[in-house]
């Protein structure tokens, strides 16, 4: 047991020490390619020059991660189906990534029944992802029912914001 402890402390220490020493440069999405049009000419060394090549964008940055639902419904709206499809493509291309689908309900009615409604919404998104080739092991679902509202009020528009599935990326 003490070996594990020492190991854990060592790993933690390495992580803490490693963090500030190895800054990760931000990729620049707007200017991704070095065009070589500078007036000064330089000699490059292939495979060493960090200025060349194409930066890789965060594959998930642009995609929305919240899908909203109608009252008493777990059907993904037509307008959101492209969003789910885009996530499916990303997950298929990056089979090492996985997502947690967090289902939510509005506050009306019974709490545990609302857990069921939230789960049903998360499952609707899961099914849609799996139909498009995402493997089951890449997807986890959890329902928070009405326990974690996004909007705190009790108006129809608050309820509409709370009936949702949030897509969260896990490692």
């Amino acid at each position, binding site marked *: *047991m003490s070996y*594990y*402890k020492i190991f854990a402390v060592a790993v933690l220490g390495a992580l803490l020490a490693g963090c500030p020493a190895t800054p990760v440069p931000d990729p620049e999405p707007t200017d991704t390619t070095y065009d070589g049009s500078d007036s000064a000419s330089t000699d490059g060394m292939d495979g060493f020059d960090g200025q060349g090549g194409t930066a890789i964008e965060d594959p998930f940055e642009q995609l929305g991660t919240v899908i909203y639902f109608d009252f008493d419904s777990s059907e993904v709206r037509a307008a959101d189906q492209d969003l789910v499809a885009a996530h499916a493509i990303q997950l298929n291309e990056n089979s090492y990534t996985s997502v*947690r689908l*967090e289902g939510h309900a509005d*506050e*009306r*009615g*019974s*709490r*545990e*029944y609302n*857990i*069921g*409604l939230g*789960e*049903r919404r*998360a*499952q609707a998104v*899961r099914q849609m992802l799996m139909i498009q080739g995402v493997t*089951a092991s890449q997807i*986890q*679902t*959890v*329902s*928070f*029912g009405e*326990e*974690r509202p*996004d909007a*705190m*009020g*009790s108006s129809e528009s608050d309820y509409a914001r709370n009936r949702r599935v949030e897509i969260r990326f896990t490692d």
Partner: protein
Amino acid sequence: MLKKLSFAIIVIVFAANNAAAQKLRIDVQGVAQPTPVAIVPFGWEGNSPAMPLDIAEVIKSDLRRSGRFSPIPENDMLQKPTDGADVDFGDWSILGVEAVVVGKVTQVGVNAYSLRFQLFDPFRQRQLVGYQIPASRGTMRGAAHRAADMIYEKLTGIKGVFGTKVAYVTAEQQGGRERLYSLIVSDQDGENEFKIMESKDPIMSPAWSPDSRQLAYVSFEGSRSSIFVQNLRSGNRFQVSNKPGINGAPAFSPDGRKLVVTLGGVEGNPDIYILDITSRQVKRLTTHRAIDTEGAWAPDGRHIYFTSDRSGGPQIYRISVSGGTPERVTFEGSYNARPRLSPDGTRLAMVHNDRGNYRIAVMNIERKDLLVLSAGRQDESPSFAPNSDSLIYATRQSGDGVLETVSADGLIRQKMASGQGDVREPVWSPFPRFAK
């Protein structure tokens, strides 16, 4: 190792917080005609100038809160005896009070007291009950509630619940979407709040064991649901269900050995299961692809009532603990959920959609007639008192959840307001078991 470590981080003892916790305040909205009674200030014989707790005040407040009694003001009393032998029945019958309580507290050791009380009927000029209860400073309030319970039972024929407890969940906003969830146990009058668990992730569905020594609940720590059973005295807890998907809605069997739970699995189809607490073995009771949840054991232990939307909207069904085809129990209205049985087995409480409002309703199981008891828009989580005579539930007041109790006939309703965040999911304890 890792498992142990995270467990140690999560389980914290909160005793220090509890003194600061704001207690519940109670407002009574009685509508019945209350009976006038006299609770004479208790006498005191001890080393300090005043007794550790004003016993008469506790008894008065218990009886007043029941909605059935109105204790007369001390100023109206013509005599203030502390011993039954000194009661002048004439003085009390003039005032029209139907019962007189006298008593005193005697210190018998450093932290040992004797609480003595007698209840008289001034018209028949008879003692109805008299009792002496040993107490320490810590158990004094409980002893006063026991006295109130005996008085209440003598006068109404109904067993008192003043000595019982309630458990509930609070959620405090911590800025943005952050919340702090707490699981609290208090006396049924809101005193003696004790936080038994807290978490930044939701806590749900507390349920009492039949011996009132344990609480089962759902916790979302680590962003997934699991079911715990926690011993109230030691604070130790153990995880009894941590399967993929939903682990929810625990309720103890009458013998305390099993829980009825909702499990959803990877495919997310919530069904009713019976979980053996010791062996962790589960037995599946329902297999429908609808949502089946919120199981509640009938007091006879032979049936389980649960919510299912197999007919479209949620309705209440009943299934034998040995399985079989569930039988639909509720038909009135489009939404009936969260069944809870009265301990005497005659009535079923539920959340009922009453013309767009979610309210607490009670159905007589034999006669099938439904009585709406609450008047809010968003009332939930009904739970019967152990005497089956009243219920506690959560309602909303200016956005926050507050607790209310209501008599099972709907006549006496009272609010318990808390200063602390959103209060929800109250569950009433069984009767306490006193050492014999």
